[in-house]
Structures are given as C-alpha cells and as structure tokens.
C-alpha cells in the first residue's frame, strides 16, 4: 500500500468505513445507505452527495471496483487494496475499543 492511500484512508471517515464494510459483498450506493441505516438503528443516514463523492473517489483510488450496472445503479465490490485498508481500520478501531473498555 503506498503512502498516499494510507495517509488519505487511515484513519477514515465513518462514511468511508461503512462503504468498505458493506462492499465485501456486491452492492450499489443506495443499498449501502439502507444497510447502514439498518445497522445503526437509523442513527447514521448517509446522504447522496457524500455517497457519490466517496464512491467515485474510492473507485479512482482502487479501493473498490465497478462490477455492473443495474437499473442505472452502479454496483461495486471491494478490491484487495480495499480489503487491506479495511483491515487496518478494523485493527485500529479494535485497539481503540479495547483501550476504551480497559480504561473505563
């Protein structure tokens, strides 16, 4: 992983994290919005401007790639690089969580 990707994506935004988490399976933008709403009991509502920008940026950076189009919705899936970034983030968040519970 080159330094640029690491600098931009670790740590990453909540939006970015949920996108990668959801794209371990094929999905389109709006299904990610719905999935995240479900996962967070409606507390996190991703919005289209943010989603569109993040998806195209992640595609450009090679974290996800385009699979096919269905009814004008672009379906993506995570790439190996994307998985690497997601793993780094998961480890970071696990450490954060562990430290939080220990100190509390």
């Amino acid at each position, binding site marked *: 992983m080159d330094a640029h990707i690491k600098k931009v994506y670790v740590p990453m*935004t*909540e*939006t970015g994290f949920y996108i990668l988490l959801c794209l371990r399976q094929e999905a389109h*933008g*709006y299904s990610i*919005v719905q999935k995240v709403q479900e996962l967070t009991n*409606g507390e*996190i*509502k*991703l*919005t*289209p*401007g*943010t*989603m*569109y*920008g*993040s998806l*195209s*940026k992640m595609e450009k950076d090679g974290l996800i790639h385009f699979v096919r*189009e269905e*009814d*004008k*919705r*672009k379906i993506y899936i995570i790439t190996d690089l994307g998985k690497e970034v997601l793993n780094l983030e998961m480890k970071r968040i696990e450490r954060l969580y562990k430290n939080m519970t220990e100190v509390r």
Partner: protein
Amino acid sequence: MNRKKTVLRYFTIADWKKEEEFLAKMHRDGWKFTSLNFIGIYHFTECEPDNVVYQLDFNPDGMAHKDEYVKMFSDCGWEYLQDYVGYSYFRKPVSQMNGGDEEIFCDDESRIEMMKRVFKGRLIPLIILYVYFILAFFLTLNTPNSPVLSAFYVFVLLTYSAMFLSFGLKFYAYYKDVKNK
C-alpha cells in the same frame, strides 16, 4: 393558472450556500423554483408555501455520468432540478425527512471535497486567464504608444485581484464554518 415570477439574482462562484437559502426562502414564501437560465434569471411559479431544502452540488464526475448520479439522489428522495455552470440543483421537502434538516452531504470531509471541486472547476480557469492578462500587460509595456492598452490591462488585473481576494475570503469563511459546525 398559476402565477409566474422571474427574479434576476447574481451569485458569485463561492456563494452556493446563499443561493440555496434564497431558493428555500422563495419556496417558504410560496414561490417554487422552476428554472434558471443562462443569464442568471430565476423562474418561479406560485405554490403552497412549504419548507423545502434546496441543495447545490458541484461534481463534474457526476455530470459525466448523469443517469446514475441523478438516480443516487432520487433514490434518497432528492428531486433533481437542473444544471447550471457546473452546479447541479436538488430539492427535498422537510416533511419527507425523518426529523430535522437533511443535506446532501453528511460529513465535513465531503463538504470540503465539494469546495475543492468548485475551486478546481471554476477558479482554476479564471487563474489561467489572469496569468494570461499579466503576460499581456507586460508585453504592452515594451510596445511604444500603448498607454490606453496598458491602462486597460491594469484595470482588468485590479478587478481580477479584487475578485480573487473576495473568493479567497469566502472559501476560507466556508471552510471555517464547516469546521466549526
């Protein structure tokens, strides 16, 4: 037959927040935005006053893939209105939002990313033009008997400088506003 109204308003490059507020206020006053033409005239038709959020995005990538771009917004309940000099216009009634003010961006990173896209898409072409005028100005200095032309270039350069200063301040104010929210 609904009454119609046209309003001439000019918003500069970095004024999209003001423009959104202007359109929302018109709707609250019972004037629904229908279109904006190339010389900056806004068209409205009379409607029931309503709280509607208007939002502008600036996304060249989305413009190049119009269908899927608009689909993403309509899936989320945003009505696509039109494009104007690189901006795309959307609206959504507050009554369709589950509690509170929804926007098309949900984090600061993406708000700032949009600002950068505006900067790249609108300001860089102006900067290139600015550099051209600077070069042209210095060329006139070497040409005898062209004080009028030199004066013209000085005028253009000063106007441009004032404009850039104003944009710079607005971008900075927007940046600070996002960060402080």
